[in-house]
């Protein structure tokens, strides 16, 4: 057991998977000599060399497009898009090809590749460096969309994503990179993709969150326990798509109330899909409408105003109280 930050835990997973499988290669801007702008790929270049840890020219479309080609040949690329806000420059490669090759070739080809992208706000960054775009990828059939919430599950999910036969978009919240250190086992560890985790058990209300919002939800649950005596269950979604609908349904069948929290804008976001899914599977158990606590439907607001836009504990507590009192 070692106490690691999320950056170190992700780095560990990359080292382990590259050690384990010669077909795993890392490609992206500044991932080699520099070790990545967030240092997630630190020392990989020194350990595995420039052929397996590729400092590419500055071109997101070619990073993903070339990785698709490598994957079609049998390699397992782990691509880094430096910030999720720049992935629109390779969106066509992801949607038109990565997500569809298995279907198009009727199973002859598949794209076993991981597209790592730092996302999320709260790091005093400029436009395109602070947004949350998981809904776009979650909406693409053929893709998997994974969002870890801490060092241990980040390491285990990244290893699982690299071994997964399908293309995985792997979102790493920038605000979590150094936010906490957690015990990470010495032995390699994987976690099942497509599985949500109940991280706090309760009977009165289900709070559903992922990424950096998980901590907000947990803190809100604590406030509700202390100030309202409410017994709140908290679910860490971990895989936005394919969504673990049965875990969500089982929880709301028990609690009868749910609040979904995410950093992405509200309309057509993951909260809408989660609410619809819960409504379909737990309608007769529902005691209140499902609430969403999200960013507003506005583009980047400037980091000076981020705090008024991104959900915080106060907003989650307020929405939970309304749901509990309904």
């Amino acid at each position: 057991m070692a106490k690691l930050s999320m950056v170190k835990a992700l780095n560990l997973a990359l080292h382990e998977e590259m050690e384990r499988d010669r077909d795993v290669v890392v490609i992206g801007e500044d991932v080699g000599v520099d070790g990545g702008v967030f240092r997630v790929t630190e020392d990989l270049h020194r350990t595995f060399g420039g052929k397996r840890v590729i400092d590419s020219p500055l071109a997101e479309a070619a990073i993903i497009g070339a990785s698709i080609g490598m994957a079609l040949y049998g390699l397992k690329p782990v691509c880094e898009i430096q910030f999720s806000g720049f992935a629109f420059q390779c969106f066509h490669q992801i949607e038109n090809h990565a997500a569809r090759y298995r279907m198009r070739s009727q199973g002859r080809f598949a794209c076993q590749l991981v597209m790592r992208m730092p996302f999320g706000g709260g790091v005093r960054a400029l436009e395109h460096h602070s947004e949350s775009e998981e809904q776009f990828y979650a909406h693409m059939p053929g893709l998997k969309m994974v969002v870890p919430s801490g060092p241990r599950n980040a390491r285990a999910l990244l290893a699982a994503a690299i071994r997964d036969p399908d293309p995985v978009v792997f979102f790493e919240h920038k605000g979590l990179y150094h936010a906490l250190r957690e015990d990470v086992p010495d032995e390699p560890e994987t976690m099942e993709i497509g599985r949500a985790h109940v991280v706090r058990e309760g009977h009165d209300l289900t709070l559903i969150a992922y990424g950096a919002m998980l901590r907000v939800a947990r803190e809100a649950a604590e406030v509700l326990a202390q100030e309202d005596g409410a017994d709140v269950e908290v679910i860490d979604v971990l895989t936005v798509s394919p969504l673990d609908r049965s875990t969500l349904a089982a929880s709301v069948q028990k609690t009868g109330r749910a609040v979904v929290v995410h950093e992405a804008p509200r309309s057509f976001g993951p909260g809408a899909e989660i609410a619809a899914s819960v409504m379909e599977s737990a309608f007769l158990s529902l005691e209140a409408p499902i609430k969403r606590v999200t960013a507003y439907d506005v583009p980047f607001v400037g980091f000076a105003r981020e705090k008024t836009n991104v959900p915080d504990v106060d907003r989650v507590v307020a929405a939970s109280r309304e749901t509990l009192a309904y």
Partner: protein
Amino acid sequence: MPSPRRSLPASRRDVPGIDERRQELGRGGKIQVTEPTMPRTPLEPRFAVDYLSILDSDGNLDTALEPEIVPDQLKRIYRAMLLGRRLDERMVRLQRQGRIGTFAPIKGQEAAQIGSVVTLARTDWMVPSFRETAAMLWRGWPIEKLLLFFAGYLEGGHPEPDQHDLPVAIPVATQLPHAVGLAYAAQYRGDEAVVMVYFGDGATSEGDFHEAMNFAGVWHLPIVFVCQNNQWAISVPVKKQTHSRTIAQKALAYGLPGIQVDGNDVLAVYAASREAVERAREGDGPTLIECVTYRLGVHTTADDPTKYRSEEEVKEWERKDPLTRFSAYLEKKNLLETGLEEQVDAEIARSVAAFEATGPADPLIMFDHVYGTPPPHLVEQREDLARRLDRTATRGAGGTTKAPPSSPPMRGQRTRSRWPS
């Protein structure tokens, strides 16, 4: 002595052994070539790219190439370069103190920016990427506005109504097609306007760069592409960015002229830019100018260049500092003003004070510019935020979000909301 225009070979290096390989193929390959009946014929014209340098690092001049610039303009150019440099240094300190956020310093690129931007008329269009502070100041962006932008307030990205400038574009190379569209529209309307668009060496790897160059060539547009080749795209050196000997030669593939200039020589940048702007204005189409320069500082204030480049390399480029070189030239012409640094620093100090006194406007303005007319769901969301802010304000210090104090709006900002109160 500085070297005047000289031609560069188009490929980085000769391919070793290529002739032997060709012969071998001829002998042992499947195709036995004895008497070529359809030989390869060289195409005309043969492509070449010029390199332009007028002022060397000691301020020595190639008088035959010296552009005609009136003394007052020479002084203004130097002042703008100095202002760019001193503000940059001040901004790095402000960032380290947490008073502004991450930004991309320009240190070392003052000649590339000022030498090019001064050749534009105010009615021409300037399209920046994200590292054009000096050029933006020349175009009339107030220092306090730029500071506000880098402090995380979108109000700082608002160009004045009469300003023909686009705001900062962060995703690399994405602004290039916009510049092409502006140039097309200017031509369509029959306006005289020329468009100048800035980008770096890294941007030339992006598809948007190639697509924009191609459109500009096909449509024969009044546009000048200014590449600031500062040698490093974060940690990736230009030799790992492209296998071309120059960036300028990329223009040839799109049927437009490309020229490489010493980007730390403000006179060379000026001469090439003036020529390109004149060509564009006269209907002779686009030009690509590659300014060979160097990012003396960090990529952004979040970067650590010691990870990927040597002290010696930086020192070598410090000897080619564009400011030192130009000031030596002005000194010989007796045009160097005394006390200029103090003047420039005082201007910066006044602007920093004004920036810090300008409290941010109401957070509710985050809803103001999402659409031309706000749809109902946004009206509701705005009301939700207003209620939350009221609640927080009345609850006082206990809240986790504090409403910033209200304050006078920035220049050019709407003072009355279009929202129902």
